[in-house]
């Protein structure tokens, strides 16, 4: 979790080597970040802030790949794929201080298959909501987070 400013700048500097070019784009117009949803401190509020009161139904058309026991709660790799005509995909961690972790807004040419690494403060349910056809489809999985072990 520790990363000094200097390290950070070194990384940024280094990453330049990986680029074809760093370009000066016209300032990207950013969509509105869902501040109230990310700021919510409980799951229900986070869902309502993000999606309003859309109906939620469990779905097996969402494939969530996540570890059953996280090697490290600071880096929990997850992958989500769905055959639903998704408009957006959101990841919630029930017991995190702010449950909404990230939200993918599916673009016309974007495939509904994404991976991300998230933080989990404690053993918790991981909930994925897929917004499609004006409804929410849900899948969830428990991920165990342990601390203080010998590390294998």
């Amino acid at each position: 979790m520790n990363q000094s400013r200097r390290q950070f700048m070194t990384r940024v500097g280094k990453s330049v080597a990986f680029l074809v070019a760093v370009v000066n784009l016209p300032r990207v117009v950013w969509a509105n970040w869902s501040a109230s949803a990310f700021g919510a401190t409980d799951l229900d509020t986070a869902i309502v802030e993000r999606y309003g009161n859309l109906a939620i139904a469990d779905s097996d058309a969402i494939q969530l790949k996540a570890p059953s026991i996280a090697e490290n709660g600071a880096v929990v790799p997850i992958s989500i794929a769905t055959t639903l005509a998704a408009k957006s995909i959101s990841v919630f961690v029930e017991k995190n201080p702010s449950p909404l972790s990230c939200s993918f807004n599916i673009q016309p040419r974007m495939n509904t298959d994404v991976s991300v690494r998230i933080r989990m403060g404690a053993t918790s349910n991981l909930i994925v909501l897929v917004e499609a056809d004006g409804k929410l489809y849900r899948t969830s999985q428990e991920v165990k987070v342990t601390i203080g072990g010998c590390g294998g």
Partner: protein
Amino acid sequence: MFTTRIQLTLSLTVATLVASACMPMSKKAGMDYPALVQDDVTTFQAFFEKRFPDTEKADYINGVYSIDADARSQWESLEEFPPYELSVDQGKALYETPFANGSSYATCFGDGAVRSQYPYYDEDRAMVITLELAINECRTANGEKVLKYKKGDLAKVSAYMSFVSRGQAINVDVASEGAYNAYMDGKEFFYSKRGQFNISCADCHMRATGFYLRADVPSPGLGQTSHFPTFRTKWDALGTLHRRYGGCNENIRAKAFPAQSPEYRNLEYFQTVMSNGLVFNGPGSRK
């Protein structure tokens, strides 16, 4: 709080006391050391073959990920952009930077792809030489200060050298009496229970490997030295094998030995011999 009195008693059984009376003493002159050691290697590796019939022998270099699919998929995801990548680059820069006297690591190690030459038993000095020790000796021979053995620049240089040596075969010779004695010291260390928990290396990494020890699956003892230095998520940095040894010892509540102490060098020697036939694949990334 004051309960240590009974903690040892479980394993100190009458049987061992009786058995101790009939222990043969080994180490006689004119012994076929390579054959003795090869027997040990065969038995050791067969133990893991039997425990994990589905694991390919060559895969043990991947540690616990060779036997734990859930952990493996997390690790593979991490290796998409390996966390040690930056350290290897920094190690390369350090490797190529000349010392004050104009020579450099390359003066000692050429292109650096020498991982498989270590550890070895130095007959003249009657001691095991590890890669990390050799790196510091290269420095002192060129008038540079020694580096700390557990992390930082030394680990980075070692990581770079391991990286350019990836795929080199592990094939440590134990050909002389001196080498065999060092090997036996390491072997004794590996199998001796120590610390307040009265646990040996073998207890976790042979007996308990593949099972959960609280929330962790201890890695198999086979292949453990192939992938160091290792970037541990827990450390958020690179660390050497001897740093890990120290951490293991503290976990069983034994006082750790210093990095590059004779105890840990001999342990590294023994463990690397046990992995003969595998390949070096450092640096690694682990939890």
